[in-house]
């Protein structure tokens, strides 16, 4: 564990121990969970309200009746702030037109109540905050109703609330939220028990949940008015352009000659980073009065490097090392171990095995990484859009050599996150440059810096072995997953999981998904850390994380097994999703989505011309405990050259409860297209320790002309709300791979699927 990074532990994430406070403050009515956990008596809570209540907690209602919700989540296009406001508005009874959102600082009081930190990922936000936000809204409504009852002289029980208006039907009296707040006399504390006792609405009473209310952040985003990290302007601010070494990680700066840079107008200083957090290696920042001058100065710096231990490595080295590790019997830790796969494979009538690979992938959100740092007195202010304010604040503090409690993170809109902005690297050059020049500094990566220094989706190698009995039934499956361990890199033990063989903690964010809902009596999954890849290509969480590669292997292999057993691959899946034992519930939901996708795509009924095929896949991404049930039927056409054209993607997903149906469709479609982009168009490679792709000419995400028809079909069955931002990423590649096989009999086992690989497999 890096001693220069101190993650401040949240005292209690357990909301059941928090009181909920409502109090009139200068700016109106403030409402929120108490920042201090503990079993308050109501008197103590009241005292705390009066003395310490901070009106920016969670949400506030102004004298104009506007309700401003403060959200400690990263808004990166999933409109999560709007969704949180929607949950509060539902129970509060406010008019949607009165709702406003603002983004929180890294103050622990805005931490996710369940996770105990500010982190946005895993498609967790809606699922985990549904209850807390609903109760927060309901508590506000109750407090307002009591105040209104007092003002009108009627019993609170006879009041109704609708569109920010509280009405007493019998006397035809009513008070708006604005009028009640203006009266300025509301103080109410809900103990944890009071909160628990609140009866939330039942789905048939919903007026906002399940309705596609317009997302609150969208109008500003059509006018160029939304403020992202890169848009921050501070008085006296100067600009920094990073110069990154040719090696992704492990290089050191030997010398810097700034004689030419000094001739660039506006140049201030070249700062060699001394990054004790070890987030970066061998970086230099050219600081100048404008960004253009900083770029020119950066280009003029003559820097020599020691390439370090990874300077000779390539993608091939990482694959070779992965294969070597997989071959060792004592490698890795077990994530799943059911029955005795070794024995069952030994006695199986038929054994098939296959290797699946994925290459390095780069996040490249449209807003390149950036951060602005300013020291004011003892406080370090960081302005950036970030998905993990809790850890990022700690890294920034480590880079500054100060205590994390002196760091204030100012959250901005994220010009794309996709997991990239869970990382904190952009704060390090900003902090150290600001310190070196004594001015606020905004550091902006060039696209080349952004791509070559990405905390990428790791290169993965997976070996799967399956055993069938004499009836063609799948009786054993062994699955080894070899990769860098992105989440272990964070150095936070809470994010690791114990292994079933008690060999030590493993990074479950490299194997999630491999613990599928198929019933296989003998099944193991082994997580094997590729230390070489871990060091050479520090990896991160890329939209959908492990299920993006585990389901590539599982869902391709299930198809291969079905064909080996002479069965239809979709029917074979349905048989395996029998809902027995630990798979009860999930397997049935997954089966239903598969059946839906099959039906909607015309699986088995549509007559296809030669060279076309439909393939299916179904996934329980993200994690077994937080799954959204998602299936895809992909319809492809394969040319004799091997070129694959995706004609249609039919996606069915069971999300339990929909908060904003239109928002869900946007997320699922975006996720599916990410899946397509990763399946066919995106590939990064390591050579001489560096990422070879530097801009959108060589790393090529999906463009409009490559857009197939996509239909998103949402199953909403009243189960609790699940996450929707990621799962559909993971179902696309295997569905396409299986469709290619269905079309031309070519099995491709590496991502991305290229025309060359398809053509080679057609010949084989």
């Amino acid at each position, binding site marked *: 564990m890096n001693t220069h990074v101190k993650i401040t532990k949240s005292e209690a994430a357990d909301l059941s121990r928090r009181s909920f406070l409502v109090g009139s403050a200068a700016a109106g009515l403030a409402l929120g969970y108490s920042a201090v956990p503990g079993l308050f008596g109501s008197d103590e809570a009241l005292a705390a309200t009066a003395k310490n209540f901070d009106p920016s907690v969670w949400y506030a209602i102004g004298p104009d009746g506007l309700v401003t919700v403060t959200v400690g989540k990263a808004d990166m296009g999933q*409109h999560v702030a709007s969704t949180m406001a929607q949950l509060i508005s539902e129970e509060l009874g406010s008019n949607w037109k009165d709702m406003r959102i603002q983004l929180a600082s890294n103050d622990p009081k805005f931490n996710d109540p369940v996770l105990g930190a500010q982190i946005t990922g895993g498609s967790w936000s809606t699922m985990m905050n549904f209850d807390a936000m609903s109760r927060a809204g309901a508590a506000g409504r109750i407090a307002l109703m009591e105040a209104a009852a007092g003002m009108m002289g009627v019993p609170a029980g006879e009041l109704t609330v609708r569109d920010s208006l509280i009405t007493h039907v019998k006397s035809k009296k009513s008070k708006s939220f604005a009028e009640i707040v203006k009266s300025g006399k509301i103080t109410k504390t809900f103990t944890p028990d009071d909160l628990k006792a609140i009866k939330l609405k039942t789905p048939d009473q919903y007026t906002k949940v399940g309705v596609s209310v317009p997302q609150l952040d969208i109008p500003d985003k*059509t*006018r*160029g008015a939304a403020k992202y990290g890169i848009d921050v302007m501070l008085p006296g601010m100067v600009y920094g352009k990073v110069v990154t070494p040719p090696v992704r990680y492990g290089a050191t700066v030997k010398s810097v000659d700034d004689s030419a840079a000094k001739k660039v107008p506006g140049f201030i200083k070249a700062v060699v980073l001394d990054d004790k957090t070890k987030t970066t290696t061998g970086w230099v920042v050219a600081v100048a009065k404008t960004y*253009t001058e900083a770029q020119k100065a950066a280009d003029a710096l003559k820097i020599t490097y020691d390439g370090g231990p990874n300077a000779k490595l390539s993608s091939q080295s990482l694959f070779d090392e992965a294969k070597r590790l997989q071959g060792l019997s004592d490698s890795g830790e077990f994530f799943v171990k059911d029955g005795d796969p070794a024995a069952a494979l030994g006695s199986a009538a038929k054994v098939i095995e296959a290797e699946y690979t994925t290459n390095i992938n780069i996040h490249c959100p*449209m807003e390149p990484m950036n951060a602005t740092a300013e020291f004011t007195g003892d406080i370090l202010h960081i302005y950036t859009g970030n998905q993990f304010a809790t850890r990022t604040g700690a890294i920034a503090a480590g880079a500054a050599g100060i205590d994390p409690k002196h760091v204030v993170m100012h959250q901005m809109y994220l010009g794309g996150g996709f997991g990239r902005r869970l990382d904190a690297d952009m704060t390090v050059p900003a902090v150290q440059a600001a310190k070196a020049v004594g001015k606020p500094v905004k550091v902006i990566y060039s696209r080349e810096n952004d791509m070559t220094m990405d905390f990428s989706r790791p290169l993965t190698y997976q070996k799967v072995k399956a055993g069938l009995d004499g009836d063609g039934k799948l009786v054993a499956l062994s699955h080894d997953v070899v990769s860098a361990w992105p989440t272990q890199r964070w150095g936070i033990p809470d994010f690791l999981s114990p292994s079933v063989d008690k060999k030590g903690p493993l990074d479950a964010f490299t194997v999630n998904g491999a613990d599928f809902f198929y019933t296989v009596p003998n099944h193991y999954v082994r997580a094997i850390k590729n230390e070489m890849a871990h060091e050479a290509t520090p990896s991160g969480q890329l939209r959908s994380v492990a299920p993006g590669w585990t389901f590539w292997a599982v869902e391709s292999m299930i198809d291969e097994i079905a064909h080996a057993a002479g069965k239809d691959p979709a029917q074979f899946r349905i048989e395996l999703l029998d809902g027995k034992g630990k798979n009860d519930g999930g397997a049935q939901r997954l089966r239903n989505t598969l059946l839906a996708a099959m039906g909607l795509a015309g699986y088995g009924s549509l007559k296809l011309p030669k060279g076309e095929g439909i393939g299916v896949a179904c996934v329980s991404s993200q994690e077994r405990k937080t799954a959204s049930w998602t299936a895809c039927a992909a319809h492809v056409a394969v040319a004799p050259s091997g070129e694959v054209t995706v004609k249609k993607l039919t996606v069915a997903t069971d999300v339990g409860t929909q908060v904003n149906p239109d928002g869900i469709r946007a997320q699922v479609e975006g996720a599916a297209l990410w899946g397509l982009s990763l399946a066919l168009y995106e590939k990064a490679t390591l050579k001489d320790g560096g990422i070879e792709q530097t801009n959108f000419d060589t790393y090529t995400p*999906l463009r409009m002309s490559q857009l197939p028809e996509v239909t998103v079909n949402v199953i909403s069955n009243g189960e609790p709300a699940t996450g929707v931002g990621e799962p559909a990423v993971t179902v696309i590649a295997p569905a396409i791979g299986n469709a290619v096989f269905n079309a031309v009999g070519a099995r491709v086992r590496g991502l991305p699927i290229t025309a060359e690989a398809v053509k080679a497999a057609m010949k084989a």
Partner: protein
Amino acid sequence: MATLNINGRNMSVEAAGDTPLLWVIREQLQMTGTKFGCGAGLCGACTVHVNGEAVRSCQTSVSDAAGKKITTIEGLSAKGEHPLQKAWIAEQVPQCGYCQSGQIMQAASLLAKNSNPSKEEVVAHMDGNLCRCMTYSRIQKAIMRAAADMRTASNAGDRRPT
């Protein structure tokens, strides 16, 4: 020192002639709606209009832009109510929103010349603008909606009694 005509106003800027228009707009004029994406003309996030043509402001120098009529997202319409902006809201297009200024400016240059584009014409015109959130289908729908609205408005105008 150069004078730029941006959104109908003449503004003096102090920058070397080879400075990309993008950075002058963003830093000196503090109009941050125009975005930096790739610095190489590959993504379209920095798209503005110069004399009515959609150009990549990261590839346009200040000296090239001087004396020409420059329009940014902030100046596309006085109140942010260009038919495309309204259509972008109606179709709920933006996700992260970062590329959308560029998308709207690129689309506006199409509709200014062709109020009834085919889907193929839209794709050909928009293919240089990347959206990492992959909002492409909604962008297409919003362009078609705006085009229809503009045609309706213009027809209504034609019918007005003289």
